[in-house]
């Protein structure tokens, strides 16, 4: 019955909280969304998928009123509308939970939820009682009564902040909630919690646009899925009618046969050795060997000291004890510049903050770690810089207008390729990759995995840090497990199973036991 009603409503185009018809949008002559139609029914979770650069971000920004379409129309409850600003989209009941959460850290939870629509008393002052009561009520409805409404947001975790953003959307009476990769930065238990909140919202009749790369979530949550490819609609289907391979091939336009490429060649000599290395008390007693041609996986929970170990090898936080040997010779690494000159490259976990200078162009970013090589006499050789960037764009298949496009305009996967290109241009022998595929779609992910295998096959030694256990197990020739700032386990490829590695990762050690 209900389904029939919705079907009927869809037929006349009425009562749909939002419907897009034939939307097109181009930037600087490049069409990023091409005649895409998309609609939301009340009380459904509609997954929006596609590779990075497929046009998902642009489409949701159009719905949120941040961009205006070049062609096509937007209908809200069957009436054609035009959002001149995000404010107008809000007024039409469309709210967004952004990837980078837009809260005010110095304000309390309750203040953040009601910012811009604070309850007022008859005198026109803020009605604190009403605001706090309604904030508590909203959080209760989201199964988040554990959040202290008087706490400042600055102290809260990403997962908690996200719940506040959702509460804020509800406070605005949102009928459509756009969630842009909501689980990208969440720990596993927060993911479960978020999914239960999404189910509650669905029951309340909120329509949820769910953008994610994670297949398990899509199958667990979504009612329908729309896939974009190169700005075009690749298909829209009810979730029960699709499976994972279908979705992947819809996204990439071809089928990806193997997820993880097989090892080529054999391990060579030891190139990097750590002997009892420590940085203050953050990481302690780190000893391991890395060989040429090997991919060594570094597993562990967030905060277990994996990144800190990488930063110590790379000279950002120089070792305070122990010895680092390169080719068997002791090396002192006190700065990233020294590490680079020793043939070490580090692709950091936080692309936007550590990896790239986003306002600058692709060529400038690639040149930055290679200035010495790209300088002739006293001057930077602009022709060489451009040639280097053009080579990288071709080699890594970076989707860009050209070497002079600012990096911030690229999609996540392409930005990651720029970081990789920058570091591979330094001709490293040791490559440290921290979360190499975080927030990247399946197609780009497979490309990066293949590239890693190829580099290892050519004799490069790769140290890979990843929070995705399947990635660690699939890519690594050997796995080290960190816990509490120490290495607590080592597994060969045969013995590295999800259970074995997972157990060591999550076991709680006291300092003494770990030592």
């Amino acid at each position, binding site marked *: 019955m209900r389904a029939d009603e919705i079907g009927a409503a869809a037929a006349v185009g009425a009562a749909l909280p939002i419907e897009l018809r034939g939307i097109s949008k181009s930037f600087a002559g490049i069409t990023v969304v091409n005649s895409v139609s998309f609609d939301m029914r009340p009380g459904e979770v509609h997954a929006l998928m596609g590779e990075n650069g497929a046009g998902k971000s642009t489409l949701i920004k159009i719905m949120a009123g941040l961009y205006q379409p070049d062609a096509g129309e937007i209908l809200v409850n069957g009436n054609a509308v035009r959002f001149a600003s995000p404010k107008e989209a809000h007024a039409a009941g469309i709210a967004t939970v952004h990837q980078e959460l837009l809260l005010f850290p110095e304000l309390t939870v309750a203040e953040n939820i009601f910012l811009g629509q604070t309850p007022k008393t008859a005198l026109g002052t803020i009605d604190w009682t009403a605001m706090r009561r309604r904030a508590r009520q909203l959080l209760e409805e989201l199964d988040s009564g554990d959040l202290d409404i008087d706490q400042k947001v600055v102290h809260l975790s990403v997962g908690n902040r996200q719940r506040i953003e959702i509460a804020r959307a509800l406070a605005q009476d949102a009928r459509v909630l756009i969630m842009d990769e909501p689980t990208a930065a969440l720990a596993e238990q927060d993911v479960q919690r978020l999914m239960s909140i999404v189910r509650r919202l669905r029951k309340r009749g909120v329509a949820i646009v769910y953008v994610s790369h994670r297949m398990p979530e899509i199958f667990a949550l979504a009612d329908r899925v729309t896939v974009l490819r190169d700005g075009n609609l690749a298909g829209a289907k009810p979730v029960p009618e699709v499976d994972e391979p279908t979705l992947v091939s819809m996204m990439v336009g071809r089928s990806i046969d193997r997820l993880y490429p097989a090892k080529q060649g054999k391990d060579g000599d030891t190139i990097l050795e750590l002997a009892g290395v420590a940085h203050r008390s953050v990481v302690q007693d780190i000893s391991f060997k890395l060989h040429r041609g090997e991919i060594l996986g570094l597993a562990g929970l967030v905060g277990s000291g994996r990144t800190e170990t990488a930063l110590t090898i790379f000279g950002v936080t120089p070792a305070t004890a122990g010895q680092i040997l390169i080719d068997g010779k002791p090396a002192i690494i006190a700065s990233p510049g020294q590490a680079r000159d020793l043939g070490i490259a580090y692709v950091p976990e936080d692309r936007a903050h550590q990896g790239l200078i986003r306002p600058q162009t692709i060529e400038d970013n690639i040149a*930055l770690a290679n200035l010495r090589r790209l300088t002739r006499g006293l001057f930077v050789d602009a022709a060489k810089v451009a040639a280097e960037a053009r080579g990288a764009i071709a080699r890594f298949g970076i989707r860009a207008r050209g070497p002079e496009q600012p990096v911030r305009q690229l999609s996540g996967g392409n930005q990651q390729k720029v970081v990789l290109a920058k570091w591979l241009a330094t001709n490293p022998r040791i490559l440290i990759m921290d979360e190499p595929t975080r927030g990247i779609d399946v197609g780009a992910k497979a490309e990066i995995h293949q590239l890693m295998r190829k580099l290892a096959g050519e004799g490069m030694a790769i140290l890979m840090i990843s929070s995705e256990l399947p990635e660690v197990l699939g890519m690594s020739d050997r796995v080290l497990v960190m816990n509490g700032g120490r290495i607590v386990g080592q597994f060969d490829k045969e013995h590295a199973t999800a259970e074995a590695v997972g157990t060591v990762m999550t076991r709680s050690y006291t300092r003494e036991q770990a030592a």
Partner: protein
Amino acid sequence: MTAAKLFRHETILAALTVIAMIVLASLSDKFFTAENLLNQGRLMAEVGLISLAMTFVIVTGGIDLSVGSILGLTAILLGVFWKNLGLPLPAAILLAMVCGTFAGFVNGLIITRFSVPPLIATLATLALYRGLAEGISEARSVRGYPEWFFFFGQGEVLGVPFQLWVLGIATAIAAVILGLTPFGRATYATGANEVAARFSGIRVNAAKLWIYTASGFCAALAAVIFVSRVTTTRSDMGTGLELDAITAVVLGGTSIFGGRGTIIGTALGLILIQALKNGLALSGVKGDGTIVVIGLVLIGAILVGALFDRNRGG
């Protein structure tokens, strides 16, 4: 394409400068004469030298408020070294400039070693250096310099004021360093994203240390020219000069948040301000009126810049 983008603000500024010149020339027939223009160039040199280094400072996302005080301190030291300590004048000049440069180095050290925000660090040294200058001078001025010393501030080479040559050469060197060298790249990278610059192997702290030291050096050089031009040394010399320099840099399109800006822009900003000051004074506008006009031009230039920024999109 990059060049087109980079020069957009500078093009507007150049057009604005030309228009201002034409208007001012029509208001007073004394304005657009070789003699007046060269004389204005003479007056512009001190702020100009400081603005060049200030461009680097602001491109890294920093600020140097102490330059006016460094100028004052260097001037006083010059006088004291020569008159009170009896050093030969060339040695006094050199030593005073070393001290001024060292004052800039100290700024850099405070900022890089102790991670003090540049605004706070140089606000403190603004007071510190000015206090030192006043303490050392004991409110006495130094006069009676030998005739040859006045060449720096009053002499001419090929009919052009000596300090205008210095400013011209310094501008060319600064433009080349910022625009074409690895050091320039490091400067922009530091201002745009310091963490990413460091993670790319750029020696961020070394670059900053050099830049604040150069800022001290430029202020010291300006001090020598200043003393030579006005033939006397007083402890309040250069008060407020930092704001004139910052105005020229910002008017020239350098982002106060760092990562963006050019020497050509700063040079244009400098010329526009000096032309307005002089031209309006010649046209009978009172001093207060001139400041108001400069303020309005600055706001206008920033609004236009912001407008282009938005259109550029992202």
